[in-house]
């Protein structure tokens, strides 16, 4: 059974390499933001599999924390690309 999880960790690391390739080569900024978000999700999967392999459940809170941080980072990036500023002073005026 552990061999299965080692193979899964290897496959996820391959997909992370593919995401990093897209992060470097991506023609526009939007491609890079999507690649970074997917890299965050792949990192979450990697931490889950590593916590299975290490036989501990102390990493499970890091998974939720990383999901929250990846979500907030993606929202901040996309708001910057959409509106040009991340935190607006007053939404109703402009």
């Amino acid at each position, binding site marked *: 059974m552990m061999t299965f999880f080692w193979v899964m960790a290897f496959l996820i690391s391959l997909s992370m390499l593919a995401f990093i390739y897209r992060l470097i080569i991506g023609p526009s900024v939007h491609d890079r933001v999507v690649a970074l978000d997917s890299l965050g999700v792949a990192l979450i999967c990697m931490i889950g599999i590593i916590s299975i392999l290490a036989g501990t459940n102390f990493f499970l*809170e890091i998974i939720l924390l990383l999901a929250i941080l990846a979500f*907030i980072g993606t*929202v901040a990036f996309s708001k910057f690309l959409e509106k040009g500023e991340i935190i*607006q*002073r*007053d939404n109703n005026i*402009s």
Partner: protein
Amino acid sequence: MKTNDVILQTATKIIFFIIFLFSIHIFFAGHYTPGGGFVGGLLTASGIVLLLLAFDLKTVMTSLPINYTVMTAIGLLLALATAAGSIVFNVPFFTHAFDYFELPLLGKQSLHTAMLFDTGVYLVVVGVTMTIIQTIGADD
């Protein structure tokens, strides 16, 4: 140009409470499992940052009327008072104590004075992070 971000605002109204409850959990879990005041404070601050992203600075200031500078000062004062409170009992500075109590709804729990120090750390981290972000965000 006024853009329409209903999906982000509706999702934020739910996700903010999940982040806040998770930060409270991380804060209270700090004694026996990973977590503590620093990570809990940073998670609370990131929840408020998500509110700032979905809404604007003025809306968040009216819905959460907190002066974060005062919050930092209260946190520092709480940490210092916890450290100095041990002098009253004729033990060295920063000596902590704990005991078991029968709480009404929770049963037998051990209450530790390191909890109060951690509350001070939590308040300082939230206050400093939100002061930095609000000062940069309000800048033109």
